[in-house]
């Protein structure tokens, strides 16, 4: 993977909008030492810094759970809303229709999304709200100390909860069938891939789902679990590799023709996909579903960009909103005239 190179001169130690990495930092984490969630926070910082996202133009959303605490640990200069369990998608939908010019990164967990929040997750995707939706997926409930989540594997055993007998819900598969136009899976221990996917997701036109396997070091990191570190490292199967190109960059990618798949994003930026597995075309929805089903059959998880489609309009576009966010409209635009009320009253006489 080739790092983006820039032609814009920037002060040493700053990005193109003159901010240092330190301007993107959050509070010290209170999660367990070695938790995969912390490395995801670091990669969010990396992605936002290197793509010049202004922190004040970012909203961080989360629900309830270990994952949902993590927005406190990155980008303190960004606005944040830690909502209630499983209902963050609704809050994000409202906030981002009130101000559709904002960037947004939501952090949820497998319980917050796959159990209590499944309905809101699917409706968010259906509406295609422009935001990055990261699921920090560890297959257990951490904060309540080790119960199964709906993404837990059949036959998985936990110290106190016993054995799980139920089918895991695949949140990427759910995203694809709900019409989501950006669905990716990664692994918290793969910093390069996580950073690249977050960057690409930030440029997506609608909702971009990143399901990141993030092992719970305390309750779920034993060798038999498919959400554990050891299992992850041994079974990870990369389906593609890509580099993210900002539109203002002139970049040459060291990829041979024929190995590169180019996808144009809504904002004009492009992602270049290098297919390690030549059979997977990320613009092919049925192929993505098939790959996930095959992976399930073979007890694999595949990482990379599973599916992308930038053609679907997002919610703000569908609502015919103008350039000024609803939240910033002056009273002259939102309180109709005295005459208009008189006219309505006259019609009712």
């Amino acid at each position, binding site marked *: 993977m080739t790092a983006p190179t820039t032609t814009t001169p920037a002060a040493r130690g700053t990005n193109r909008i003159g901010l240092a990495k330190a*301007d993107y930092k959050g509070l010290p984490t209170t999660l367990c030492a070695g938790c995969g969630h912390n490395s995801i926070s670091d990669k969010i910082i990396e992605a936002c810094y290197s793509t010049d996202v*202004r*922190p*004040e*133009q970012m*909203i961080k959303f989360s629900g309830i759970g270990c994952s949902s605490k993590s*927005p*406190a640990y990155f980008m*303190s*200069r*960004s*606005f*944040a*809303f*830690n*909502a*209630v369990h499983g*209902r*963050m*998608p*609704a*809050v*994000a*939908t*409202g*906030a*981002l*229709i*009130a*101000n559709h*010019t*904002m960037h947004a990164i939501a952090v949820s967990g497998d319980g917050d999304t796959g159990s209590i929040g499944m*309905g*809101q997750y699917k*409706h968010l995707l259906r*509406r295609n709200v422009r935001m990055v939706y990261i699921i920090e997926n560890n297959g257990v409930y951490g904060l309540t100390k080790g119960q199964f989540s709906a993404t837990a594997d059949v036959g998985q055993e936990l110290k106190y909860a016993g054995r799980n007998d139920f089918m895991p819900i695949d949140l990427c598969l759910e995203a694809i069938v709900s019409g989501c136009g950006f669905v990716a899976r990664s692994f918290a221990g793969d910093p390069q891939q996580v950073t690249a996917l977050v960057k690409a997701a930030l440029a997506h036109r609608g909702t971009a789902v990143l399901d990141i396997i993030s092992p719970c070091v305390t309750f779920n990191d034993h060798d038999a679990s498919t959400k554990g570190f050891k299992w992850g490292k041994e079974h990870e199967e990369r389906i593609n590799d890509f580099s993210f190109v900002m539109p203002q960059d002139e970049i040459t990618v060291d990829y041979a023709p024929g190995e590169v798949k180019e996808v144009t994003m809504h904002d004009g930026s492009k992602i270049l996909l290098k297919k390690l597995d030549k059979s997977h075309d990320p613009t092919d929805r049925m192929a993505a579903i098939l790959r996930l089903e095959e992976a399930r059959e073979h007890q694999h998880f595949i990482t990379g960009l599973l599916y992308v489609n930038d053609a679907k309009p997002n919610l703000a576009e569908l*609502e*015919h*909103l*103008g350039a000024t*966010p*609803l*939240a*910033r*409209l002056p*009273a002259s*635009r*939102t*309180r*109709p005239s*005295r005459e*208009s*009320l*008189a006219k*309505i*009253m006259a019609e*009712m*006489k």
Partner: protein
Amino acid sequence: MTIADLDQRQRPASAERTPVVNDFSITIATENGSGSQTANTVLLRSLFKMGIPVSGKNLFPSNIQGLPTWYTIRASREGFIARRLRSEIVVAINPATAIEDHQLVEAGGVFMYADDIKFNFDRSDLTYYPIPVKKLSADEKNPKLRKYMANMVYVGALAHLLNIQIDEIESALMYHFSGKRKAVDANMKVVRQSVEWAAANLTKTDPYHVEPMNETDGMIMIDGNTAAALGAIYGGVTFIAWYPITPATSLADGLNEYLPQVRVDPETKERSYAILQAEDELAALGMVLGAGWAGARSMTSTSGPGISLMSEFAGLGYYAEIPAVIWDVQRMGPSTGLPTRVSQGDLLSTYWLSHGDAKHICLLPGSVYECFEFGWRAFDLAERLQTPVFVLSDLDLGMNQWMTKPFDYPDQPMDRGKVLNAEELDKLGSFARYKDVDGDGIGYRTLPGTDHPLAAYFTRGTGHNERAGYSERSDDWMKNMARLGRKFETARSLVPAPIEDRVSGAEVAIISFGSADPAVVEARSRLEKQGLQTSYLRVRALPLANSIKDFIAAHQRVYVVELNTDGQLGELLRLHIPEYAYRMRPANWGDGLPLTARWITETILEKEG
């Protein structure tokens, strides 16, 4: 026969009973889904346009087609528009309820019925008018339309017997069908045939008739949900999320009808609003809180079951201090309850909606005029006080037609509350979201996107200190709750004050709220005729105004009149004013129907002994 001929026709001969002019109720019993709404609203509007004070109430089942439904129209020259327990005139079109409907007629009244209904008419006090509904609508060849047209038969017969002006019926049809001549003509044809038939075949022996007045000049007719929608629009609402539920759905319908008319840029077609049908009421309030937090004037509308579902988010809104407006068009509960019947049963549960220590501002409109006024004021209060504001309407106010003076344009600019912009942050040099800078319990907030490194803060439902930082410290928690308490006291001084009518020398008073108002107003007049003077205070908001205590102190016995089974306003008054608890007497009733003046009068007289 032309319309002019019809209006100049001979008045039907009455027996020597004293005429009753503009003072009676009509109940029309039909089947749900039979299209009788057109006929009923046309009758209502005709009387309204003749200048006679009227009200119309639809008592309908939770059903799309087939179950019995009733519509009552009250004409009152004195201007009383509450429901009447019985009607002087009953029109029975539905055979399934005819026996019951027959019992509903006030002594000495009229029973008009479809002549194919056969049963024993055994009340000697009534006047019976069989009308050939099927025969008079048989000209219409389309069987579906024929069923609709059949309703115009009783319109014509009533017009003849009561002397309702035919041109007013035609104008009302024009209004109803938005000027579609073909539909108006088809209906008028049946009306005219029916009038002719009645003139030739019915001998009027009842005393009821109408005469033009000028008591409705300049007034409009509207339902409370449409009034609320207009209030929100003129309050500058920019985001609405809602989920369908009877009886609140027509509030969202009103928004969907009028927003495109007045809030779309005619050139760019850009909307200054967004309205989303959410997947459920939880999501609806979640979206509203998200949008309110981001700075949009944001609202939802629902009924009791939706309010229950919103409980967790209501607590978040209260504790994270987010402006939102939530309309509860109340219906009868608990559970699914009586979804198409009215109640004032959500007062306590809404006031305290949430786990933990929370209490909410509740506005209590008592008329369609107040549905409009509170519709816009609610946003000013929500943004000033940075908290969810509930507006408790009900099915009777929300779905029935009421006459009212036209709505006045908001008399003050929008109050967007304490919001800091980048320049102000620069000047201040620091920002603490939940700090009580002004001593009124209300902090300053910033909106997402404010371009200043100090602008951002972390919004959460977990414990926080005044800088919005996560905190599990007991002192931070208690300090924050104490400030929320101060804010609630500020709210007490800002919400709509009660309306009082103190009668000097009166020992007895009535306290009530919401749609109980018309019945209370009429009951006071009846009580006065019986020699009992009463004062009246109508509560218009929670938290309760301090002045209520003085009002109670000035009277010996205070009847708390409300439409629910538990006497919820009474409970709240006793809790807030325990020293006068002994003076308060419950006068609550919950049968799913709007209160009647008769019940209030009898209840108070009985308790007064």
